[in-house]
């Protein structure tokens, strides 16, 4: 290029034709529009939830149980105390069942099973479990624990259904984290003479812990929002209950029951309960995100 300032015609052959430029702009515009479209429902759900839900929040909303017949006395429909406590109890038991088993299976997959045929069969069945619709878990627990034992609904049966739901999530996320642990760490512990179980309990698991907490919290958050598996395992009662072998209320089931009510006050209670549930789940998600940011592995 000898000319210090080339004529525009010299660049013309490199220029993008107007038609291509229009197409590019159109496509980018549509992609942006699609992205904004995805955020619309989020904004609407959050806005509607806050505007409807905050109105029913009060001290008595959290400290009283919902009352039975609400058709005529709209003034005293009660709050959601039993639902909150029920959700916490059911999900806590489900976590106690699912987390140790899930982490155990993940440890086996990474430390013992590796790429054996048995291990890939186990991985396949974990994948199958991931895809099972939550209501089908409810049916299964119904068959085994209610038809099978001839007894009625109970809180702990709901916990079992939720535990089945959490199990694949816990196994998969724990496995991903365990795979990230460098082999040299295990080898150096083994070379120092530590037996396998000590390596697992004193080296592998502590290193993986922060990363695994994230997956576990996300699994809990997911279980807490599930309605379908609880419908015919833990069922409904309106009373606060600390005995997991009795009928037990829960937030999602309470909302589901209240949605169909013809009384506005009861529907408003559903909105308040929905806001409570979403806030609980968001808190779990937030904690999970903070921990995963801190951890070096995840």
């Amino acid at each position, binding site marked *: 290029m000898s000319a210090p300032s080339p004529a525009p015609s010299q660049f013309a052959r490199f220029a993008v034709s107007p038609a291509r430029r229009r197409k590019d702009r159109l496509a980018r515009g549509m992609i942006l529009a699609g992205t904004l479209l*995805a955020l619309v429902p989020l904004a609407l759900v959050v806005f509607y939830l806050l505007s409807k839900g905050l109105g029913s929040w009060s001290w008595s909303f959290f400290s009283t149980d919902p009352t039975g017949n609400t058709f005529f006395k709209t003034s005293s429909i009660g709050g959601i105390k039993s639902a909150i406590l029920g959700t916490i109890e059911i999900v806590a038991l489900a976590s106690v069942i699912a987390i140790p088993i899930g982490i155990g299976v993940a440890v086996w997959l990474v430390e013992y099973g590796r790429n054996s045929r048995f291990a890939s069969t186990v991985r396949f069945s974990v994948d199958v479990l991931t895809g099972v619709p939550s209501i089908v878990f409810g049916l299964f627990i119904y068959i085994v624990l209610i038809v099978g034992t001839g007894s009625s609904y109970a809180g702990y049966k709901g916990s079992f259904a939720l535990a089945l739901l959490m199990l694949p999530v816990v196994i*998969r996320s724990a496995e*991903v984290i365990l795979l990230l642990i460098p082999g040299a760490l295990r080898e150096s512990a083994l070379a120092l003479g530590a037996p396998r179980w000590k390596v697992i309990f004193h080296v592998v698991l502590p290193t993986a812990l922060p990363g695994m907490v994230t997956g576990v919290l996300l699994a809990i958050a997911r279980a807490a929002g599930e309605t379908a598996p609880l419908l015919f395992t833990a069922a409904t009662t309106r009373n606060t209950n600390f005995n997991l072998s009795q009928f037990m209320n829960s937030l999602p089931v309470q909302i589901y029951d209240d949605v169909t009510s013809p009384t506005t006050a009861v529907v408003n209670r559903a909105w308040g309960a929905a806001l409570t549930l979403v806030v609980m789940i968001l808190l779990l998600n937030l904690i999970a995100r903070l921990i995963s940011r801190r951890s070096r592995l995840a």
Partner: protein
Amino acid sequence: MPGGERSILERSPLARLPDRALKYGLTTLAGLILVLIVYFFVRLVGEARPAFAHAGVFGFTFDNDWNVSGEKFGALPLVIGTLITSGLALLIGVPVAVATAIYANELCPLRLRTALTILVELLAAVPSVVYGLWGIFFLAPKLQPIEQWIADRLSFIPFIGGGTVTIPNYFVAGLILAIMILPIVSAIAREVMATVPADHKEAALGLGATRWEMIRTAVLPYCRAGIVGGAMLGLGRAIGETIAVTIVIGDAPQLGSHLFGQGYSLAAVIANEFGEAQGLHRSALFAAGLVLFVLTLLVNGLARVLVSRASRASKTTSAPQAAGGSQPIAGAVAGA
């Protein structure tokens, strides 16, 4: 080793005990997962057998007659309802999810990327029952006039036009499902797009492609299988989704005459009728659960094959890829 003497490097049998215990304990635990699946299937088939014996497997699945009081259990209206709503969810949800992924990966200012990702993932944190509540009290009533307008204008198209629009209907259910599958489809699309080698994109740009041409020629073909797999995973979710659909589909056990009419789905019928069901009716609901289970199994199986093939392909073609190429895909799938 002479006479059973142990080397000093060997552990005593007692000290080796915990090792054995842990190994066999964990193996049993892993085996239990397998046993659980098999037991699961066997028991479900056992409970569903009376209904299948009553109408035959094909009769149950494809007869268009769900009449509880008449003891007629043909699940076609439910199967069709499930397929219509989840098909709609794919039709609406996947393009939006892919657009979100493209925007986040290729067009978005770097500073906004994390915020956008978090916002889309927040959609997954809202429980299904809350979507149902929102759908029936906000979305469906607000959409009804628009739907009626569309139905009137398109009355010449058999399934879409004509008829009166009810507040709960197939379309609203499909729309809610689209919102619910958006985060998972978008997350997988994003992970797959992150595996596209920078060389390919730079080559396209270097040859003079515009941004869109680069996306169309370098990015999209490279991750087509992964996106299709993500969409199938979304489909699996939509098929199994229960409570939101139960609330907004209208619970009419006949085959809906048009898109904006009331219908039913497999999962919704179980949630609604199981509480009062007895005898053959209950068995029919177990059979509906089994059909649902098999349907999701097929869809998810296909999805996993596609996703894993996509991540394997990207692993072999781009060796010096940044950490976290296929791992996040596994993570995203596990999070599903």
